[in-house]
Structures are given as C-alpha cells and as structure tokens.
C-alpha cells in the first residue's frame, strides 16, 4: 500500500472515483505514513479517525453512485492556524494549547464538503510568524531534505513548515497553508513542492487565526500545479462572514489549465536582481525565462521601483496588525491563564502573555505596539501604508506591459535549523521576493525548478494580476512540464 502515498490529489481523487482503490485504503496508507514520520515533527496533533471517517463517507457515496466531490477521498494536512471543530487548534502557541474550537473555519469546511479528510493539524511558526519553522511552541519542524553528505537538520521554511515538510515527505498528498508575507511560497520553494497564494479575498479568513488581517490569505500546497488548482478551487469562495471576501464566482481553474503561453508576456523585474542572491538561484531564474519562452511567452523587462521598500513596509504593517489581532489572547475566554498569587486583572494579562507567547511573537507585538503608539503612527504606520500603495502601483504599471511576473521565490535555498536564529533581520530577508506580492494582494505561486549543488530544491515564483490565478497556474504548469522536477528527499525519518 505504500505506493498510494506517492499519489497526489488528482490521482487519488480519480483513482477513488474509478474504483482503483478505496478512499479508506488511501487514508490508512497516509495515516501509517504520518505515524512513521514523527521525527519530522510536522504534525502537532494527528487525526487518523477524521481521515478514516471522511474516507468511509466517500466510499459509501461511491457505493450509492453519488458525486464524490472535487477532493473526494483525498486526505490532507491542515495547518494548525485553521480552527477545526473539536480538534485542538493552537497556532503553534502555548497560549492556545488545549484550545478546542466549537466552530469550523470556512476554508476547512469547504474542503470537507468537497470530500477531503484530515490527517492532522500541521505544525507552523508560532502565529505564522517566522520563515524557518523554528518559532513553534511544539518544536521545530524538520525538512525531509538534507544537504548532500550531511545529516544536519534543515529548515522546511515557514511559516507553513509543517505543511511543506509533510507534502515533500509524502506523508500527505497536499496541505493547507497560509501566506502573510511568503508563508506558502517560501516553504514550498525550500521543499521542492508547489504552493499558491490566491488574490487577497479569494479564500475566506473566517476561522483562520489572524496574524495580519490585510495580508493573510489561505492557499494550497501540493506537489503539482494541477493538485494546487484542484485544491484551491475547493478552498476558495465568497463568504459573507468575511467582510473582505471577494464576491466572485470561483473559476474552474483545473479545467482551465493550459501550458500553452502563446501571446502571453512575462515580465522580469529588474529590481529583483539583488545582492546576496545565490548564484544558483539567479541561474534558475534564467532557466525559467527560457522555459516560459519555450512555452510561447514573450519575455519583457519590467520595473518595480519600490521593491526594496516592500520588506520594511511589511515589517511595520504586519506587526502593527498582529499587535492588535493578538490582544484577544488574554487568558479570559480561552487558552492559557497565568494568574500569579494575588495578581489583579492587568497583571494576569501580562503574566499570561509573557508565558504564552514565544520570543518572535513578543518581538513583533512590541514592534507593532511601538509603531502604532502616540506620536509614531504617521512616521511608521501611515508611511508604510503609503509605501504599500506605491508597491501596489508598481505592479499595476508593470502589468500594463506583461501578463505575469517571473522571479525567484527566495534569495537562498533552505538553511540548517538554528543557523539564522541569532539575527531576526537576516531571517526576515528570506521573504524579500515574496513580500511585494503580499503587500499588493496579488496571486502568486512557487513551483520547483531545480536543485542546487547541495541537492536542495529551488523554486520559481510567478506573480499574477488580481484575480488571475489561472494565468499564474498556467505559467506554473509550463515551468513544471519543462523543469521535470523529480528529485525526492531520501527517506531518513
């Protein structure tokens, strides 16, 4: 049965529908693979019963000749940022340890409605704050990848590091991720898988633990572009409970897939050629241009002049929103409460939050609190939101000349866990290519391109116009067909 774990979303769905195997067999195979892979620490909790129950429901439907749904029989991993009814939801933070939601997030509900089941809740950077999956209260996530000739534990990227690790290790065919400033694309690039962040507003944020509301978007992580298209279609949709949700029909992305890019113009932003970017990455970028040209696209130079200001703007806007979004974790209604002897209400808050939040979360709350505090609002927050307008305008102008933008996903390949811990700033720079699209709310995807000299995966990023997930997926598919990325991490776990 191990062969089943080599299958992705489309193959499982079609295989179940075609009677090649049952959904229960698939769920059992992945449950077993998950159980074997504890050393990856990709899951915070596993939910084999949930996966089995969903599988049995799909098998029963098939027996009755009913529609199985677009994800029928596919067990997935759920990032532990999505509230799942009756299943602990922590955002990888001590402050939410034991929190048992009485509600289901819209996105996870959409997936269950489409016939998917849940293997477990995936580890992540605490409150999705991090780029290496080292800020989780529940321990680091290990990448299944290692440098050639080394046993050093590598980062699966972050914040959706549990998701990327699980999908790359084939212990889940696909997983949900969330992307605030690169948290789907960067881990996808680090682990040789695909991941797409849709246009802001495509996926409902209702029931997703908030990090930075104006940036947070859910999206799928899987091993192929087709699988991402299928899963995104299941996740997306208008939700009246989210005031920022897009009131638009979800396009048929799966059936709309086409690797033929004739007549399309792909922009190459000159400002993305930055110091400190790996040679191998620059080379893969060049290769990417060739592939897209080969697919029929015209390659054009474009300019995104405010690129270098995107990351600093992000590191004002995101912490500011986070400092407010995380105020609700106060030990009153749910989660951790630390009540020192004789403490009053305000002391209880301070003790609870000191005990419950990790260092990176505290750092960002402090930055966010500072930039919003009296006298600094205009200089920091307002200035950052103006720069954000400029970043967004850059893209709009670039899209007058092209249909999509091709860039590296990250400036480097994965790094060993622990190697960047001393320097938050260097860690932040990992998202330098990912953040501009986040600030502008644009759909963006990472697709594996190649491996570097150490045998570690490198990803390419495609950024599209608002609402043009199809264009992004199509360019991704064109790369996938030409990159023929078949590298797999050697199983050590």
């Amino acid at each position: 049965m191990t062969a089943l774990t080599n299958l992705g979303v489309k193959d499982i769905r079609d295989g179940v529908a075609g009677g090649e195997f049952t959904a229960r067999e698939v769920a059992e195979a992945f449950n077993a693979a998950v159980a074997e892979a504890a050393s990856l620490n990709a899951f915070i909790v596993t939910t084999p019963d949930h996966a089995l129950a969903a599988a049995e429901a799909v098998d029963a439907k098939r027996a009755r000749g009913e529609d199985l749904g677009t994800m029928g029989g596919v067990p997935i991993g759920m990032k532990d940022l999505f509230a799942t009814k009756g299943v602990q939801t922590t955002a990888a933070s001590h402050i939410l340890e034991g929190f048992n939601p009485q509600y289901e997030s819209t996105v996870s509900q959409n997936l269950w409605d489409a016939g998917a089941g849940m293997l477990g809740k995936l580890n992540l950077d605490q409150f999705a704050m991090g780029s290496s999956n080292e800020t989780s209260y529940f321990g680091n996530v290990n990448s299944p990848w290692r440098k050639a000739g080394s046993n050093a534990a590598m980062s699966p990227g972050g914040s959706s590091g549990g998701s990327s690790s699980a999908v790359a290790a084939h212990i889940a065919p696909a997983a949900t991720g969330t992307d605030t400033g690169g948290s789907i694309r960067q881990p996808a690039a680090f682990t040789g898988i695909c991941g797409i962040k849709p246009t802001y507003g495509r996926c409902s944020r209702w029931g997703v633990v908030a990090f930075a509301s104006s940036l947070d978007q859910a999206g799928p992580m899987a091993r192929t572009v087709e699988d991402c298209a299928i899963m995104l279609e299941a996740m997306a949709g208008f939700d009246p409970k989210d005031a920022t949700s897009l009131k638009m029909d979800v396009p048929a992305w799966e059936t709309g897939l086409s690797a033929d890019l004739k007549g399309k113009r792909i922009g190459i932003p000159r400002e993305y050629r930055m110091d400190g970017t790996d040679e191998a990455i620059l080379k893969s970028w060049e290769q990417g241009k060739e592939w897209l040209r080969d697919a029929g696209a015209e390659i054009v130079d474009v300019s995104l002049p405010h690129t270098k200001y995107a990351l600093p703007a992000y590191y004002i806007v995101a912490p500011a929103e986070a400092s407010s979004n995380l105020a609700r974790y106060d030990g009153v209604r749910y989660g951790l409460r630390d009540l020192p002897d004789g403490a009053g209400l305000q002391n209880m808050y301070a003790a609870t939050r000191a005990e419950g939040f990790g260092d990176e979360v505290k750092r960002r709350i402090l930055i966010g609190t500072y930039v919003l505090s009296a006298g600094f609002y205009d200089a920091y927050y307002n200035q950052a939101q103006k720069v954000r307008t400029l970043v967004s305008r850059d893209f709009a102008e670039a899209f007058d000349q092209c249909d999509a933008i091709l860039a590296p996903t990250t400036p480097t390949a994965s790094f060993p866990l622990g190697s960047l811990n001393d320097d938050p700033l260097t860690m932040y720079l990992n998202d330098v290519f990912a953040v501009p699209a986040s600030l502008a709310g644009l759909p963006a995807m990472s697709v594996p391109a190649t491996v570097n000299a150490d045998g570690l995966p490198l990803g390419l990023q495609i950024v599209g116009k608002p609402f043009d997930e199809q264009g992004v997926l199509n360019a991704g598919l064109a790369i996938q067909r030409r990159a023929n990325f078949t590298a797999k991490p050697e199983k050590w776990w």
Partner: protein
Amino acid sequence: MSVDKATVAKIASLARIKMGDDELERMVPELNNILEWVEHLGEVDVSGVEPMTAVIENHLRLREDVVDADPKTAGGRREDVLANAPAAEHGFFGVPKVIE
C-alpha cells in the same frame, strides 16, 4: 528613532507582556536593529500618496439586521462560548476582582 530600555518597558507594559530586566536588555538592540532598518522607508517620497485602505478593489458589504441569521455568527450558544474558559462560573467568565 531608537528605543532605550525604559521605552521597551513602556511598550511591553502597553502590550501587557511581562518582561524581566534581562529580557528587556536583550530586546533593546533587537528592536533597534529592526527599527533602524524599517526607517529606510522615510527615504520614499510619498507626497500626494494615499495610505492603502483596500489591497484589492472591493466595497464594504453590510448585512441585514436579522438576529441569528447564520448560526455561525449567532448568539444563544453560551456553552460554546464558555467551553474553553479557564474560569467559567454560573454562566460568566471569571477574572480576578477588578476595582474600578
């Protein structure tokens, strides 16, 4: 602008995060590094530029005034609301006594 220990202590207090001396000391250079870096934003000429309000063109939708229209955002579910409370008593959330 840079922060000193007293400022960090004040911010931590505003954010209700208890911090010991060591932790405050450690935070000072970390925050200053980050602040120094984000201050590059000051170089950008933003004259005439409006701060971003909606990242994707969209309008604020309003809902009709109907009680409990959607069970997911409805009242009448006290048990659910209190289910995770560290101290739920007699249908209330309990907190250390507050003196107003």
